[in-house]
């Protein structure tokens, strides 16, 4: 399989020097290599033609191609390593078009219009000990240069295996919200426009952050309700709980899917019961729950499992749920199948067999979406056509233990 490794900055500069910048840039800009030809072969051919034409190499620092809904961010928490990386992948060409470095268990965010991406991260003055610094870093999506570095006071980050909705942007992309677990539950507010930490909002015993408007977000509470938080002017924030919508023994997974564009929250349980809430009005409207598996399938051991186990495609109103036959309490083990479910009717549309262990799924939000299937074990992102269920491309060598897929609903 193609070794689609084209990192930004120093590595990219070296690659460009090796290939000849004009040839390399042309290769990056080009569409997918012909089926019989790998990216490497195409690059070699272009470099040979460049050399045969007597042209000289002129190494430059490249920029990423223009952003589109198929720009995929794959974060590698690297099994709790102190230093981590994020790979930026162009889904159309199945190529890595950039990388960024980060610290301990960063939380990635991507602007809904693709205009920037960033992360909330943590570093220590001696790799993994010494003075701790929590900070937010914002990157330009073409140059990968940082455009903001905002320090967070008193190391407030919740250090946890990466849950995407522990950090979120408001719809206008001007405010970043992040969760604090200890010493008490709270949400930190960061004003990206002025590049300053704003304040901390104390909240009840609730988790995750789902922004609905630029001033409102929801959380999920220990008692089984949602919490609505209205951020007021001058720090006068108001909170209110919804009805309890799930039973105590219905365990919601840590990786719900949420579409800020239509306010849909899709939240499966360990057994494949899928709760949905429509938050678009600013109030939580709970939709009828869906059962992803029949009683017979449940008896045969079918249940969701993996890391990012669920994805939601807004345009088609479809849910993609990772599932497999598994023993109880093996809910973090990967799955070999994805179940495509109509979110409105609950009807199963399709069952796609990956033929391999997949830990996380994602979906691009364009009209003919790509399905992204990430294998932490193989360190590879597989790209599927969800209509045909066929694998169309793959990108390998994505760090040590890649787990998180992020896309923008542009």
């Amino acid at each position, binding site marked *: 399989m193609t070794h689609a490794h084209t990192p930004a900055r120093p590595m990219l500069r070296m690659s460009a020097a090796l290939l000849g910048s004009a040839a390399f840039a042309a290769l990056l800009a080009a569409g997918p290599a012909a089926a019989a030809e790998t990216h490497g072969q195409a690059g070699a051919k272009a470099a040979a033609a460049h050399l045969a034409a007597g042209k000289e190499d002129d190494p430059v620092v490249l920029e990423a191609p223009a952003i589109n809904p198929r720009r995929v961010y794959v974060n590698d928490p690297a099994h709790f390593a102190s230093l981590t990386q994020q790979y930026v992948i162009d889904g159309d060409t199945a190529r890595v078009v950039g990388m960024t470095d980060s610290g301990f268990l960063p939380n990635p965010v991507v602007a809904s219009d693709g205009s920037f991406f960033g992360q909330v991260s943590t570093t220590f003055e001696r790799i993994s000990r010494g003075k701790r610094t929590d900070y937010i870093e914002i990157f330009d999506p073409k140059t990968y240069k940082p455009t903001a570095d905002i320090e967070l006071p008193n190391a407030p980050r919740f250090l946890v295996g990466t849950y995407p909705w522990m950090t979120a942007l408001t719809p206008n992309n001007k405010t970043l919200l992040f969760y604090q*677990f*200890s*010493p*008490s*539950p709270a949400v930190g507010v960061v004003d990206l426009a002025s590049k300053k930490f704003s304040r901390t909002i104390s909240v*009840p*015993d609730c988790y995750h952050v789902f922004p609905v408007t630029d001033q409102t977000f929801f959380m999920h509470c*220990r008692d089984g309700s949602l919490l609505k938080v209205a951020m007021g002017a001058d720090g006068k924030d108001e909170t209110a709980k919804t009805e309890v919508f799930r039973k105590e023994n219905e365990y919601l997974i840590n990786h719900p899917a949420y579409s800020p564009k239509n306010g849909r929250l899709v939240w499966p349980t360990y057994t494949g019961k899928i709760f949905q809430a429509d938050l678009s009005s600013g109030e939580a409207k709970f939709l009828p729950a869906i059962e992803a598996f029949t009683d017979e399938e449940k008896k045969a051991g079918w249940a969701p499992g993996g890391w990012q186990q669920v994805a939601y495609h807004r345009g088609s109103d479809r849910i993609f749920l990772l599932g497999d036959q598994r023993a109880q309490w093996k809910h973090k083990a990967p799955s070999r199948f994805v179940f495509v479910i109509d979110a409105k009717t609950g009807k199963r549309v399709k069952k796609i067999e990956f033929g391999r262990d997949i830990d996380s799924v994602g979906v691009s939000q364009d009209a003919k979406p790509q399905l992204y299937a990430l294998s932490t074990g193989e360190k590879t992102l597989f790209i599927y056509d969800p209509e045909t269920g066929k694998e169309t491309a793959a990108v390998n060598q994505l760090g040590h233990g890649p787990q998180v897929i992020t896309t923008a609903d542009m």
Partner: protein
Amino acid sequence: MRSLILAAALAVAPVGAALAADPIEVVSEAPSGGAEVKIAKMKFQTPEVKVKAGETVTWTNTEALPHNVHFKPGAGLEKDLEGPMLRANQTFTVKFNTAGTYNYICTPHPFMTGKVVVE
């Protein structure tokens, strides 16, 4: 000569200790008569207790899940006082020297909260 210095130090020590007494201090053994708080079902069963200055509060974890008592800065307390994790039937006693309201949590379960009001 050495014993004289030691004797002098011992004579001064109680006065110095009284002057520099921490608002709260961990006590190794629970004296009789102090307040008690049981920990069960992921809760401090008496989330608010009132004691007088100089009295103690003893926490007892009654369940298998470990819990602790973790005071946050405030009410004259300058630093966190993070008690050890208590396993089932283990206890932790604190003596309160200064009036005030002392809020605390369980470190791994920050939704478990309580307070001691010292009059």
